């Protein structure tokens, strides 16, 4: 299977390294004041709008300020969406709706981050299929 080929493994590993936790930790630890600011803003939002809003806004701001790969958020949206039909089939409709809401928020975040990215790095966007 191609998915298990060395080339794929390498590619996946490099993707994880590029997009993953290591970079995130480096970004957070290298700019402690910025990280603290993100945490405070998320906390403030959370105290006003609730914990869920605080966490989601925190993630959004972090992705925006550290310029992390926004498609990760898109991936989270897709995973949440995949959960919906499974939950619906198991008659957990309420949970399916919760997951759909998360998918919606993640997609909205992706679009927001893309807008920012387009302003920041117009060169990244090629009109290619």
């Amino acid at each position, binding site marked *: 299977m*191609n998915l298990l080929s060395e080339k794929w493994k390498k590619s996946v590993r490099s993707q994880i390294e590029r997009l993953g936790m290591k970079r995130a930790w480096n970004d957070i630890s290298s700019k402690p004041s910025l990280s603290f600011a993100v945490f405070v803003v998320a906390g403030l939002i959370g105290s006003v709008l609730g914990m869920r809003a605080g966490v989601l806004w925190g993630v959004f701001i972090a992705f925006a300020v550290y310029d992390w790969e926004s*498609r990760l958020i*898109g*991936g989270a*949206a*897709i995973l949440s*969406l*995949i959960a*919906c*039909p499974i939950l*619906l*089939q198991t008659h957990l409709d309420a949970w*399916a*709706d919760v997951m*759909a*809401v998360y*998918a*919606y*928020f993640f*997609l*909205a975040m*992706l*679009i927001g981050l*893309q*807008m920012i*990215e*387009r302003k920041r790095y117009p060169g*990244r*966007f*090629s*009109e*290619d*299929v």
Partner: protein
Amino acid sequence: MAREKILSWLKQHWEVIGLIFLSVFIYFRWIGPGYFVSSDWQYTSANSLKDFFHIGTWSNLNSFGKVNLNLWRLPIALVQGIFGFFGFDTRIADKAVFFFPIIFLVPLASYFYAKRLSDSRVGGVAGSLFFSYNTYFLAIGSQGHIGITISSALVLCALLVLEKWRATKIDSNSYAYQIYFAFIMCLIGFYDFRFVYILGLILFIQLAFLFLQERKEAIRLFFFGAQSGAIYLLLNLFWLIPFVASSATSSGVIFSRALWRSELFTLSRAVVVHQPFWNPEQFIWHHVGQIPFYLWIPILLVLSYSVISIRKRKDILLYLVLFLFGVFLSKQEAEPFNWVYRWLFVHLPGFGAFREASKFYLITLISLTGLSAYFARFLFLGKEKRWQKLRFVCFGFFILIPLLNASSVLRGKIDGIYLATKLPSSYQSLLRYIEQPGNRYRILWIPEMGVNWGIFNQNASAINYYEASGTLSDDVPPWLRLAKTLSSDKTGGILRMLRSGFAADLLAVSNIRYVILPKEFPGDTKNPFRIEDRDSLKSVLDTLDYLKEVTLEGVSSTEVTVYELKNRMQSIFSFTSFIQSPALDDKILGFASTLQDSKAFFLFGNGTAPSSSTVITRLFSSSTEAFVYGAKGFSTAQSFVSVSSTPAMVMKYRNPKTYTYKIKRAGKIEIVQKDSGMIKVAGSVALRSEMNDERVLEVDPLKEDEVLDVDGAFYTSKTDWKLNGYRTDSGLIDRYKISPIDLKNGDFESGLWESHVRDCNRTDDKADLNMRVERFYYGNNSRSLALAARTHAACTKTSFKITEGNYLLHIKHQSPNAEKASYYLGFDGSNTKIREEFPTQKFGWGEYWKEFSVPHGTTSGEIYLYAKSTGDGREMINRYDDVKIYRVASDDVSSFREAENEIIPVGMINQDTDALEYVDPQYSGKQLLTNASFEEGFWQEKVGDCNRYDDSPQIAMRLNEGEKTDGKQSLELEVTRHVACTTASVPVRPGATYRLSFDYQSPNARQASYYIGFNNLEKTALKKQLQIIGSDWQHFSDSITVPKGATTLSIYLYAREEDGVKTILNRYDHFSLQEVPDLSDAFYVVTKSEQELIEPKLITYETISATKRMAHVSRASTAFFLGMSESYHDKWMVEADNKKTNGIWNGWSPFAKPDRVANELHYKLNGFLNAWYVDVDDWCVHRALCKENPDGTYDMDLVIEFWPQRWLYFGLLISGSALVSCLSYLAYRSVRNRRRRVITGAINFLAKKEL
């Protein structure tokens, strides 16, 4: 060669041909000759289609007349009218105007749109399939909402034009694309104007998106939209102007309907564009279906691709934005931000037209169509090699899943207008009959016509009782709406109404000629009654002496029974006196019918009545604080004061029609005397209220083997007679002799029927069921059966011998937690089965009766009793006792004697000297509510949430010491989200009347509201919303009659959410609940008219159009009322027929100034028709608008017209001019371009030659 050319052409256009072929294949039935009718889609004959040519601002095709709210689809109606002109009915017209656009336009528009976006044919195919065969279009199409589908396809055409315009950098002075765009907008609007609004929203999103990315392009787009919008506006002024002129938009018909069934719409449904009722195998409208699993697959694929490729095309980002926007709107009030839709619905202009969110599925669909096209292109033309191996699998979903949806239509799993049906032969004959020329009239269909068969035209309007009686708009007669309130039974109310004394007059004034009782035919999806009801309906209609059954050629009376009104009135008539009454109800009607010389010309309300009116006022109106009980005696009635200002007042009283039939069980059955009150004038007894009812049943007491059937409720000699009598809504009352059959151990005194409980819903092996015999439960001094189910359904059965005949089933039932009890009756040797559920009694035992017939050849039967689980793990318990089956030995073993109506005049009362007093020693005036002013705290510990639609309520309850009207404090309910409520319960006497009063106030709410519920079997409830004016305390009081079987009254107080953001406060104080005598219909005050008027000798008229009549009045000697049987609208005018209303300019101009009857003399006859007071002195003597006859009487020619029609002409002039200008511009531009091309070609030619 030709073959090669054809093959080459086919090869080039394989996808277009394939899509069309597929569409034709799926909708092949529409191409056939059948009748396609269902739900909101109806058949219209060729003659009726011809009437579409005369469509104006007033419509009376199937109503009592109303502002034509469909004027925006006038061009479509005109096209249909052309078909009618050539003798084609809707079987042909619908194909051209609706079916073919769906078959051809929808797949092609979506194909070209998707192809344009993706620049690939495969993308076009993917987009087209996705768009054309989604569950939304297919589901709503079945109900006839196909205008939505066509409008949606036209939205794509408009966006295609926009895309082309954006790609074409033509000179800025050209407006051709704007005109094309506006033309398409018009077409969209003609099919469904709401989609123009949605197109506007899409443009707005594009504009906002572009504004963030490319401002210059955004500004260009803005001007494009503004110019197109301006042209669209000009082209649509023809309906916008009369809409505004007739106040149609502010009448609330379109824009202020309440939000509809928010619970249907969820975020998951919005994401996959699942129409809530879509169920591919068993499609039933209003039955919510599960989202099919397969619908998620293409969505997940497309979104995954979009997320990965979001940087590769900026349009993907735009379509994701559109997707989010569409999903957000089409989830209606579901999470997240569930308050937004309601807020937009209330505050955003035009958004009120979207009472449910499914129309916004279009935005999601457009975005997914675009994204699908990109995805398909990526699969087939992309550079990513590894995906190409999976392309056929992925692309397969885009073909298979829409096709899976469409296959439900193809296989006939979805019916509605997808399946052909036949026009019943009786309807065909009836149609021919009503199409004969003649005077205008109306047909009242009871309970409702086969609405889909369009048996009406401009000449013969059709009124559907059941539909009209549920309509709250002003164009429906109050008597029709009243009929519905008279009975909970669907047809009982109209029967009661038709049997009332004024029915013949009310029907005649309403210009009803025929009353028709149809049979239920296939395709009559709205026909609400069952065939077995028809015979009983017919038997009642047969007894009405003002109707005669008529036989029409070709109309079978067993299918369609036609009754004609014996004494008809023409639609324009005169009369001389109103009966003015504060409001209409059956008691007022009943009372008025007993007055001598009265006719059914009513004026409702307390406004100024013409001096020739007879004014009826209730002495003890339920809406006024007319009396105070106990030792204090009774204050002067407010209503009485207002009436007594008339000097020549005659006071009459009449005993009321509180209950139609009454029986009292006291040794022998006798006429009821309800109370012993009396009226005192100046200290002396003037009247004694004996309260003889209008119709009183006097019969011998019931024997043990007899049962009384009152409107389907059965009573035996053992019935607990707490009431003084029984009320019948329909007047259908029977007394049967019965004998029990041998059903062993029906009372469970000998134990269980079976040793083990059965599982009657074995879905898995996890049954948790129980069955036992209990003793002494709820005052039942004997054994009873208890069935319990945590899962599945517990049941038990017994068998019995039974033969052909009529029977009654009796079951006593009780349940502490189940909403319903249920049983099954089956018989050997036949397919007759009875399976029913009925509401259970929570406290005490309820009695259930069911009448049934056993078919020929039956020897035995069996009965099952059930307790059904609800699936949430709770143990549902149903108790049963006294299961008996009685054979009905004979019908109607007694006759009924009725008392006469009586009106007794009691002479003059002088308001200056005579005090009015009501004394009744039986009533103490005791306060029944404890803690009525909240001095001892709350009614309940915690605030209740009476609309828990999610887990985020924002509600509170507190006591307010600052704002109060009684004692130290009042109750304050606070709400931001949901509904805050609190409740209290009091014991009450069934049948007794209570007076509820309280004070209410709010600093910011628009209304206060309460709800009263009773614990009777039917769970009777009353609710009211009280308008709050200003921030002062207001007082409310009303009378409440406790329904039979109810022993507890629960009152709920509310603070209701407004928009989910604003915090609303409602305060309540000073409650009072006292038992009172029901005097609301006991005493009336009647004033005689001062002036005797004489009707004109003759009125003739001619109907010019739906909006214009010419009337000729002959030999009028005094003032008179001119009535017109069209529902009231203040823009109907009576004018003198002279040059001020005729001529080239004055004949159509809305700026003309004709001689007209003043607006203040225009009355609402019977609460819904037009009547004008024509003062002969003013009209003929002072204004000289009449012709005087030698005998001193006058003749006059009058024009009655609906004035907004003139605004339609004015609008048509503007829109027509705009259309001509646009077409001229396009023609000019086309000629100019051609010329330029010729010149350019010539120059090029010459240049070449020169070279």
